[in-house]
């Protein structure tokens, strides 16, 4: 005879028992519902967040090294001075780029860029645009899907052409509803023809250097028209800084070259810069860190979900203990008829599992619904992992067995004579 056939009457008994105590069973199951639901939902949210972060880092390129200019802290600024009204001079230079390209082993390409804010005008609309002055190779190193037109070219560089590529974001800020390609916008003192529109990078904890850019122009055109100073006039007077390059993206030949490369760049810059007015970011390291963070994240979330499952399990155990007392006589009858202790244990375990699996299934649905709602209302990405569903089911069965065992053993340990006499 099949094992399933001999268990089925007990499963049915468990189901009828659950049905007979609807309210009690429902309340007991709630613990499991929330426990299992939170496991799935938390894993989905955690996975969504980390996948987004990893995605962003990967887009920065795992074989790239980012070298950035940073304003030195006031103590370090020393007597080179940047009181109000004066020009702060700091940061990485073209010379640094050349040195890196020519001396650091394993460098494939270096891409310089200058991030500035320039007043711009399109028709009646006037606003400050965030402009990235760079070379065409930028678009090889940082992937930006082209929505219309083209990106910058070597031809633009040779011609020192007054052309610009807008981002989706920039287009929106300029309120340019009509076709933008071919239109001219004024950026500071120059008139630029829009040649292309690219997609922005969206959200995420790790940002690309151009994540909030509005426009790209050839760096050579920028130097020709604006020089290297970025001067802003404010109520107090003039505030400005002179930064040759805001950023160099160094592309290495492979990921193995990244770490020694970043050390070499660090040493190189330290030799030529008196102050620490630069910063080196390695996406690969960030990637590793993000993966570590993800692990920590999962452990914390897992612990929280584990606690709620524990609470759910204790609730079930509590109810099962009550049920054992309630059914003492039935246990006595079954034992008198000739049921071994182990059969009583199995009967009560099945009963507990019916409760925990029932709660687990509802919890599964809740766990699927919560990430959907989160994504719907907060636009936060969530990824329900198929394994988490299997995990949730496994957990329900596990909880049923672990927390059902004690009440079941208590039931089986009853003396049949005493149990029969119980009223």
């Amino acid at each position, binding site marked *: *005879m099949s094992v399933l*056939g*001999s268990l*089925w*009457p007990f499963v049915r*008994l468990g189901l*009828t*028992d659950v049905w*007979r105590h609807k309210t009690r069973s429902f309340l007991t199951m709630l613990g499991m519902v929330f426990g299992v639901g939170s496991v799935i939902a938390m894993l989905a949210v955690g996975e969504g967040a980390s996948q987004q972060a990893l995605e962003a880092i990967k887009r920065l390129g795992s074989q790239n090294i980012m070298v950035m200019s940073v304003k030195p802290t006031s103590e370090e600024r020393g007597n080179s001075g940047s009181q109000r009204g004066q020009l702060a001079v700091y940061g990485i230079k073209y010379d640094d780029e050349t040195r890196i390209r020519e001396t650091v082993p394993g460098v494939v390409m270096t891409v310089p860029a200058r991030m500035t804010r320039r007043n711009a005008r399109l028709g009646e609309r006037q606003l400050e645009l965030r402009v990235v002055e760079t070379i065409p190779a930028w678009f090889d190193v940082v992937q930006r899907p082209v929505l219309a037109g083209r990106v910058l070219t070597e031809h633009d560089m040779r011609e020192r052409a007054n052309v610009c590529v807008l981002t989706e974001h920039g287009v929106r800020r300029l309120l340019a509803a009509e076709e933008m390609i071919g239109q001219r916008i004024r950026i500071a003192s120059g008139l630029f023809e829009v040649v292309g529109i690219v997609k922005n990078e969206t959200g995420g904890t790790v940002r690309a250097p151009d994540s909030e850019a509005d426009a790209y122009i050839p760096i050579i055109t920028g130097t020709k028209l604006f020089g290297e100073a970025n001067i802003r006039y404010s109520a107090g007077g003039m505030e400005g800084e002179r930064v040759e390059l805001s950023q160099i993206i160094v592309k290495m030949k492979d990921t193995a070259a990244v770490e020694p490369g970043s050390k070499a760049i660090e040493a190189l810059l330290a030799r030529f810069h008196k102050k620490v007015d630069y910063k080196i970011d390695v996406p690969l390291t960030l990637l590793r860190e993000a993966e570590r963070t993800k692990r920590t994240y999962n452990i914390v979330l897992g612990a929280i979900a584990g606690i709620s499952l524990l609470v759910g399990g204790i609730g079930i155990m509590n109810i099962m203990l009550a049920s054992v007392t309630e059914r003492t*006589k*039935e246990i*006595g*009858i*079954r*034992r*008198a*008829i*000739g*049921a*071994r*202790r*182990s*059969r009583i244990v199995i009967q009560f375990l099945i009963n507990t599992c019916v409760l925990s699996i029932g709660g687990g299934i509802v919890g599964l649905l809740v766990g699927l619904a919560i990430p959907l709602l989160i994504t719907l209302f907060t636009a936060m990405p969530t990824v329900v992992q198929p394994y988490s569903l299997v995990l949730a089911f496994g957990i329900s069965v596990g909880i049923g067995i672990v927390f059902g065992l004690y009440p079941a053993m208590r039931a089986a340990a009853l003396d*049949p*004579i005493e149990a*029969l006499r119980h009223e």
Partner: protein
Amino acid sequence: MIVRGTEPPRPRADEVVRLDGVKRHYLVGDEVVRALDGVSFSIRRGSYWAIMGPSGSGKSTMLNILGCLDRPTEGAYWLNGGNVADMDDDELSDHRLRNLGFVFQSFHLIPQLTVCENIEVPMLYLGLGQSERRHKAESLAERVGIAHRLRHLPSELSGGQRQRVAVARALANDPAVLLADEPTGNLDSATSVQIMALFQELYEQGKTVIVVTHESDIAAYAKACVVLKDGLVQSVREGVS
């Protein structure tokens, strides 16, 4: 008295029940209560016995021992060829399952199961398949005259009907002994007569029936009788039929 070191004599093949100097002592506080203090008798296959005695005579202890729910402190109890005194809990359970059919004073049906499911319980533990269980339960219900109530719950039945279900359940494992404990204690006299007639019928079909009771008119249905008093056999009346 059992002489230690010697094996008690094995029962003859036709002795379905045999007790040799069965003692059952309890320790209550510091005091030893001798509920049974050396009881010996044997019951032949296919006979109809009553076990009588006033309360405090050791009747309940006798029932527990005969029903393999308890083991003798001393002495041997053979039921259908197996010595209960040597068995562990699982063996005792299996022995009950294969050899005994219980009928209780207060029926002891499982309230959340239907009549049919109650009758099926022993077969479930014996490992019978679903269709076989169903089929046998139906024929047993037929035999005790409760076939029209198979889908009902015990709470929907009268006392007499419940006891019929209990008898059907007790027969479900084809037991060597049908053991009834005050089977009419919760029934009115008319119903009692019907239930006792059912036992008579089963006896005539060849079942071994043991009824434990304190009522002499119930004991009168049996063909033989053991009377207990103060944990000892006071008298044995045999061979009326």
